[in-house]
């Protein structure tokens, strides 16, 4: 082929510009740490990144929901633990009142103590966490338990929220107030009636209900405990998913720095060689230089 100066210049310039482009790309990867800087760099990678971002955001939501739920459940559990202790105290007072060796005035004193313990239970049944009455079902803004005489009534409902804490997994955030407390307050009311009537037989009868109260409360607490345990497992599995998503993301978008640096080095060497070769081409003597 007949080679003219213009061909040599054109080829030199085009080689130079593609080398410059390559070095620019490698530099950008090194400075940003990312191999994708626009959609065109990897259209499918960007589409996958966008769904991974959505999954990450979903995991953040699940984690936050799991944290909330854990908090509500633990608040309920510690309230019920306290209730359990208070009922034990009431049972002890009741047992003392049931013995035939004490008199009416002593029973009246014991009844007073039972009432004070009962009021503490009532206050726990109206526990609030973050502004929510946790034993009120979905009627969260009104104290669920009210007392008239010795009769405690529950105005809450059984509508306890379940929330998503993992894809397809819902955890119930609490327990229904009437499930936890109705039997408790009933038994206490009976006990107090027996004590006020100064009737050891009636007291004995009322005390007979207490084993069931304890076991009922135990069952409620087991339910809560199971959910707290489930949440702990889920929280750690969310953490695992988060790490695996971060890894997937990194595989798609992060530049391999060592590779980029080697590539940059290679291009720079090629660029230097091209420039020095091109320099001698541009300054190349043609026949005119020789014939003068």
């Amino acid at each position: 082929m007949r080679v003219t100066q213009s061909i040599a210049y054109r080829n030199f310039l085009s080689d130079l510009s593609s080398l410059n482009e390559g070095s620019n790309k490698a530099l950008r990867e090194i400075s940003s740490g990312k191999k994708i800087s626009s959609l065109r760099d990897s259209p499918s990678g960007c589409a996958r990144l966008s769904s991974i971002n959505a999954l990450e955001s979903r995991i953040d939501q699940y984690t936050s929901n799991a944290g909330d739920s854990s908090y509500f459940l633990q608040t309920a559990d510690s309230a019920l633990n306290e209730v359990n202790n208070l009922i034990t105290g009431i049972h002890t007072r009741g047992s003392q009142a049931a013995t035939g060796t004490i008199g009416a005035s002593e029973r009246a004193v014991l009844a007073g103590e039972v009432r004070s313990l009962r009021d503490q239970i009532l206050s726990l049944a109206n526990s609030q966490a973050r502004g929510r009455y946790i034993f009120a079902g979905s009627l969260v803004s009104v104290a669920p338990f009210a007392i008239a005489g010795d009769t405690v009534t529950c105005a809450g409902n059984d509508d306890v929220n379940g929330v998503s804490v993992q894809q397809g997994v819902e955890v119930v955030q609490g327990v229904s107030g009437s499930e936890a407390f109705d039997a408790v307050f009933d038994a206490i009311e009976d006990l107090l009636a027996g004590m006020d009537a100064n009737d050891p037989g009636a007291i004995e009868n009322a005390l007979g209900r207490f084993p069931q109260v304890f076991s009922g409360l135990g069952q409620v607490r087991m339910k809560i405990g199971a959910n707290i345990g489930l949440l702990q497992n889920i929280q750690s599995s969310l953490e695992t998913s988060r790490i695996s998503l971060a890894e997937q993301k990194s595989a798609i978008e992060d530049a391999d720095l060592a590779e980029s640096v080697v590539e940059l080095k290679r291009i720079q060497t090629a660029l230097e060689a091209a420039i020095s070769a091109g320099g001698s081409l541009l300054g190349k003597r043609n026949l005119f230089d020789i014939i003068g």
Partner: protein
Amino acid sequence: MPSILDGLDNVEQALAAQQFALSITQRNIANAGNPSYTRQEVIFTNDEEAGISSGIPGVYLQSRRNQYLDGGISRQLQYAKGYEFASEALRQIESAVKPESGTGLAEAISEFFGSFNRLSSTPEDPVSRQQVLTSAKALTLEFHRVYAGLQRLQASEDTMVPQIVREINALTAEIASLNEKIPAAKASQPGSELTLRDERQKLLEELSSIVGIDYFETESGSVTVTTGQGGALVLDNTSYELETAPMVPDPFNGIQLNGSDITAFLNSGKLGGLIQVRDGTIPDCLKTLDDIAATIIERVNQQHALGNDLDGLAGGDFFVPFAQPAPGSNQGAARNIQVALADPRGIAAASAGSGPGNNENAKIMAAIEDEKLFYGASESVLQFFSGFLFTIGSEARSAEDNALTHNGVLGQLMNQRDAEIAVNLDEEAVNIIKFQKAYEASARYANTLITLSDELINLLGG
């Protein structure tokens, strides 16, 4: 038998021929740096068809453009410049729909539905409620930002159109004027038309990089230029101007030739790339955004109305309802999306008839994110949006690749053409020596003839 003096006539012709050849060499060297120049060659032959006659018998001037290569270069220019322009414009679209840093529309969408998921955990909490409104507001702003960015790009491309049309008209006018000058120059002094033809070729290539054209040379030596679908731009020494006129329904600059709109037929060259982005890619993007916004508005409002707010009332409009400007058209949904709800208590997180702490409706609202509302009920909103990003990325990628490929072919063709017609200084140096030596030899021959005739005269007169 030829006389000695006849020989002197031959010498005169020979000297003139070498002088002519040297002048052509000088012209070639002077134009060595002119990229549109075609080298001229002096041919010594008896073949009268060999080229343009120099006026000296047996000496012809040759300057051959390769029309096949010229045509190929023009075509590659049209493709390369069209794709180059589209590739650059798409870069701006890419950064509008997916900013390199900060959150984009996809993030805003998942943040919005995610806020309902969080709300389902603490439906009575004013902070969670406020968070829903905040992320809804952020979502609307993101729609506005992307939409306005694309519209700005579209408008700024459109403002370039009149200027480009003026460039085209100036070029076709010049080509028509050269069509007139070339035959005149050829008639008055054969050979003087060659540089004019080179000039015309340069203009044709400039025109090709702006707009897709076809052209061919007629018997008379003038060039006929037409648009891709055949409308004449240059016929002999007349050029026909392109005009701009507002289009319907979008008042962008349409392009007309002889009163009929040819905008849709312009698909290569810089102008073709511009029109493809302005009238194809950007409207597609805007439509996708409108469809996404309209679907979100409708579905969210519908579900929201089924729930109860914190005060036990049925949910009102969450977003300001969108009314379709025409059946099946969601135009304007993304630009106008607004949150209707102002009071966080008004968010209907509870199912109808339940207490204020109920979260059933919030859960359903959150799950809208996964509902297959798009693409014939086969894709969720984010799947659809990812597909949209993928389409833009692929289009940008392929425009860039095509620009690269066609520029590569263009470079190859230009090299081929230069191999045929560009000036090579080494050759010209050799030619100078060759013609100079021939001139010297002729002069010496003349000298010999003169010596011979002197001797003859001396012999006779002595």
